[in-house]
């Protein structure tokens, strides 16, 4: 059941996070987990004609959204990262993943997520260059946490950040070299939110359309 759901995330990024959660319980599934899987199917039942819409448009500006859900997991306290990559208004890549280390604060979790986004963006820039599509750095990474944005701009270690594994400070270097830049986006416009936590209906539907997931008849 989960395998088929995973395959569907190829055109339905709106269920990505939920599929990831239930996927984590596959080894030892219980009644509640089956109920959660059934709920995803019941949601899909109502959105059978939904898919990704790529409007004809010349704007190919690359930008990314990054968000986290800090320490949601009650048993290991790890945070979930989410990232959504757009070219113009078209969603071209996305991820929803549990972080490998425990973050002490939301800022740290956001910083770690932005670093993962940054690596993906650098790869995308190279690939686009192969297609002779030029993207002018710095590429924006939109984040709703101002502290994480400040850490990315501050190349000095201080007591609150010096424990963060070195690999994530890769982000600072890229910001310094003006390859990427972190910019603020208000939480309600944060598309990547949908990839990190279950949302109430109104927010969910708003962000879903912002991602470019529409009903076939409305396109």
């Amino acid at each position, binding site marked *: *059941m989960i395998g*088929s759901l995973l*395959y*569907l995330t*190829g*055109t*339905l990024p*709106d*269920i990505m*996070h*939920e599929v990831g*959660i239930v996927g984590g*319980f596959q080894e*030892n599934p*219980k*009644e*509640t*987990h089956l109920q*959660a899987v*059934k*709920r*995803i*199917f*019941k*949601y*899909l*039942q*109502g*959105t*059978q*004609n*939904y*898919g*990704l*819409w*790529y*409007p*004809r*448009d010349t704007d190919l500006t690359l930008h990314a959204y990054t968000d986290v859900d800090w320490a*949601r*997991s*009650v*048993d290991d306290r790890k945070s979930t990262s989410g990232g959504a990559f757009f070219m113009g208004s078209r969603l071209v890549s996305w991820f929803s993943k549990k972080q490998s280390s425990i973050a002490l604060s939301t800022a740290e979790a956001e910083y770690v997520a932005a670093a993962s986004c940054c690596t993906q963006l650098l790869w995308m820039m190279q690939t686009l260059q192969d297609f002779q599509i030029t993207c002018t750095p710095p590429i924006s990474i939109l984040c709703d946490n101002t502290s994480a944005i400040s850490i990315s701009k501050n190349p000095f270690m201080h007591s609150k950040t010096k424990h963060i594994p070195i690999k994530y400070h890769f982000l600072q270097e890229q910001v310094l070299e003006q390859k990427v830049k972190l910019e603020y986006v208000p939480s309600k416009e944060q598309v990547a939110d949908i990839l990190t936590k*279950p*949302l*109430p*209906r109104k927010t*969910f*539907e708003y962000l879903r359309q912002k991602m470019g997931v*529409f009903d*076939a008849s409305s*396109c």
Partner: protein
Amino acid sequence: MYVDDIIFGSNEEAMSQSFASIMQKEFEMSLLGELTYFLGLEIQQKEGGIFLSQTKYLKQILKKYGIEDAKPVCTPMVTDVASVQMMNLQQYINQPTDL
């Protein structure tokens, strides 16, 4: 060499056609025309853009798991923290000491 499928595209209709004829000269192949279906992915090329969906595949699995007639819900997961925590905790129901 054996190639199952190939997708190609261009902004120029003429370039697409000349590429197809070059390929057909070199290899034994059949041209299926405009891309509409690939590995379960449905592609609709419309006036205003391109629409990607997996409706056929989705209908198939809804049928397979007998959920075609269920009452649809608006979001894929409940939002209350308690039920997510419940899922986390239920993993340990057989060995509560592992927690």
